[in-house]
């Protein structure tokens, strides 16, 4: 692809939604040398991107077919849908999967109950509430860990 100057051997990621998670992810991938395009319908959202962000930022509605086409989503290796609206993420992920034949599609879902919609489509879901709960449970299962750390640092 001419657009990127060099060959796309590092992969091309399309991030949908420039919230805290989307911006953070885009910055990390871009810093790691990946080609990133981030799309959000509100152009003020791009303020969250770091000054060193080397990818493209596109203002547009990710549930709109022409906006997705413009973002060359069909050429993406990975599509990540992380807007703050679950239903937008579902629709964007399904559009990427079904209309643009993207093989790797990841979506963030606040409500894990809606996951059944994705399951048979091969879309990976990430649910912050479930992940947080697991992490908290893990911390709780080793109650002395924090104390030990405090003790260690005081020695």
């Amino acid at each position, binding site marked *: 692809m001419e657009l990127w100057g060099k060959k796309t051997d590092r992969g091309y990621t399309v991030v949908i939604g420039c919230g805290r998670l989307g911006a953070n992810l885009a910055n990390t991938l871009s810093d790691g040398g990946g080609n990133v395009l981030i799309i959000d319908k509100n152009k003020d959202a791009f303020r969250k991107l770091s000054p060193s962000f080397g990818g493209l930022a596109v203002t547009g509605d990710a549930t709109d077919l022409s906006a997705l086409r413009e973002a060359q989503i069909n050429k993406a290796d990975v599509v990540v849908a992380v807007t703050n609206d679950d239903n937008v993420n579902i629709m964007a992920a399904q559009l990427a999967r079904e*209309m643009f034949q993207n093989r790797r599609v990841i979506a963030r879902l606040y409500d894990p109950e*809606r996951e059944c919609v994705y399951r048979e489509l091969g879309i990976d879901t990430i649910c912050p509430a479930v992940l947080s709960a697991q992490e908290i449970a893990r911390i709780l299962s080793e109650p002395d860990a924090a104390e030990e750390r405090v003790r260690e640092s005081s020695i």
Partner: protein
Amino acid sequence: MKTKVLLVGGRSKAKSLATSLISKEYQVTAVNNTYEDCMKLAEIDGLTVIHGDGTRPFVLEDAGAGEADIAIALTSKDEDNLVICELCKKEFHIKKTVALLTDPQKTDFFYKMGIDSVVCAISAITGIIEQRAFMDKIATLVPIGEGRVSIAEVPIPGTAPAAGKKLWEIDLPKQVVIGCILRSDTAMVPRGDTRILAGDTLVLISSDRQEMAAIRELTGR
């Protein structure tokens, strides 16, 4: 047993659809996210109203989605309607799902995602406006098969170029046939040598949106 219909979202659309369905003896449940809209809907006799977000499975469960026969998603957001229909289909195994769609470009996508019927309000309305504004001579135009085929009733005035001609003399588009001629109180199925007379009403069956071209050819408008 009454057919159970689930209406999700939509203010005035849900209201008029619910009224009409209840009068036709359906058992209707409406789900709405806005409390004020719920209060409006609750004024309708015999309608069960659930206040909640219809894109969440437990709200749909409360609304009796498990036993519903038809689910109709009427919200103004395409993504919500998609999720509602997919949940109804996959979680609750509702036989028929209908979604309202704003963006006509996504019609194919919605069908691909397993929604049984997609109604695109914008293309339907612009179609009707076009028809009313430019073709006041057509009595009725009925779209069938998702609008790919339409049946039109076309009155033939004395000034029409088709009046007095035989069918094979008229240069109609390939996708159009004259299915029936209504003459006084009789209906006849025409053949190539049937002559069209002024005062006839023709029933046109056409595909690929060729009805306007055919009507222009027949009536000269």
